[in-house]
């Protein structure tokens, strides 16, 4: 299916963009985008660099505002919401940033405990139990006292995931989760994302240009090209697409005219 039509919302939509346009200077990074991302599944948004994938995530969280259109996340109209409602909405979401955005001066334990202490005001005994649970979930038991800069890239990513799901969100957004990681570490992060989504049953939205990673974790997939959602559907349908531009991206064909 192509961009001008909204995706079928057979299940309830965790994120819905209707006629969304976002420009930077004169350039429309997203141009009249319509898409509905189903709840309870892992949706991967693919696309070359600069096609608006990160912009789409930031619009869904209210970190950026659109020039036109409506963005509904977990049923809330993000840009009609007042600040307290927006903060409340964000507490129902988690986000794993490309560079992890861990607090460098805090230990791994304190990074994961941060939202529990500062947002949920969880009693300290429960904080310890929950952080230990999360460390075990991401395979980092015993790493709690380390500082983030004493960890490998893959371990930092695991800590960021643990922090993102600490408040038991309904929706977790991943911005290039395997960017800058070696293939084996990337595969382990992919497996962790897949296993965590299966275990928690919540909505994961992943943006990446890593096709192998997408093939492993996606239930649904979309391809962004030229500021539009060029194709969107379940993974099998997208991967079977015969659209030449979809095939060129999935088969990693270099663009016409690229130097050899």
């Amino acid at each position, binding site marked *: 299916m192509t961009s001008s039509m909204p995706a079928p919302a057979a299940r309830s939509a965790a994120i819905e963009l209707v006629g969304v346009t976002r420009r930077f200077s004169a350039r429309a990074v997203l141009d009249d985008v319509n898409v509905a991302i189903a709840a309870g599944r892992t949706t991967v948004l693919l696309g070359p660099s600069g096609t608006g994938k990160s912009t789409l995530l930031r619009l869904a969280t209210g*970190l950026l505002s659109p020039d036109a259109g409506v963005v509904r996340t977990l049923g809330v109209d993000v840009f009609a919401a007042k600040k307290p409602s927006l*903060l409340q909405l*964000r507490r129902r979401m988690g*986000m794993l*940033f490309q560079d992890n*955005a861990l607090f*460098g001066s805090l230990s791994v334990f304190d990074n994961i405990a941060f939202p529990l202490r500062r947002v949920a005001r969880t009693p300290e005994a429960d904080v310890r139990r929950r952080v230990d649970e999360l460390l075990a979930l991401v395979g980092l038991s015993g790493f709690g006292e380390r500082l983030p800069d004493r960890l490998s890239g893959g371990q930092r990513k695991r800590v960021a995931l643990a922090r993102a799901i600490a408040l038991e969100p309904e929706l977790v957004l991943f911005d290039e989760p395997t960017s800058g990681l070696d293939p084996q570490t990337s595969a382990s992060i992919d497996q962790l994302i897949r296993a965590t989504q299966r275990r928690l049953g919540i909505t994961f939205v992943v943006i990446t240009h890593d096709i192998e990673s997408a093939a492993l974790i996606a239930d649904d997939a979309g391809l962004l090209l030229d500021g539009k959602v060029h194709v969107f559907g379940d993974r099998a349908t997208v991967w079977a697409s015969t659209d030449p531009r979809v095939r060129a991206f999935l088969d990693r064909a270099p663009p016409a005219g690229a130097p050899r």
Partner: protein
Amino acid sequence: MTTTWMRWLSATMATPLRFVAFVARAAAAALRGMPAIDVALLTSRLLVRSLPIVVVVNFFCGAMLTVQAAASLQIFGAASMSGVIVGFGGVREVFPLLAGGALAARSGAEIASQLQAMRVTRQIEALAMMGLDPLALLVAPRLLACVFGAPLCVLAAMLAGLFGAQAVGTLQLGIDGGTMWAALLSGVSRFDVVVGAVRGVLLGVLVGGVATFEGFASGDNDAASVGRAAHHAVIRGMVVVCAACLLLSWLIYGRHA
């Protein structure tokens, strides 16, 4: 012609207006309340980092002012009265001004670079994504720390300047200790000390406001922006400190000289 002027005026006033709105929002967030422990820790850190430089700079400045005052009063055979000039001009003007400058250079630069580094590494977005208000969590406590810390820096600057003058007056110029100290204090009134503390609060708002504005609200995301934020916090911080001191002097001492 009118349009050109309007365009120039709006371009010139855009940043100052943004600055005022930013400080007002941070002050409103501070009034809504925040963990006292955060403010206490940040204030003590500001004092630990800034007080030593404030004291050293003002001690030497008091000493230098005394040397120059003595040199000029020597002509009239009144070198022993050099303390009056240092006490008068130093406590009212020079020492608070230097305290504000040292605060901007030490703590202003630190606050701006810290916040901008958090911006570049997306830590501020991460806080926002947890449903927290980064302005209330990061900016308001730093602004309050400056407001609480700056008056102490100004008062410490006054004392350090007077001790610097006393040291040079007695040890180098050979003025009697009691005469020197009496001359220094004769130029200082209780009103001057109160004005110094009030001036400290204003300098705290300005230095803290400029530092947090440069670090938090620049909108840049590149690595070089961390250095730029620190640089702007120092330069712009010092300019507003000078302008505020001039304005206060005119308002207070221009009428009560």
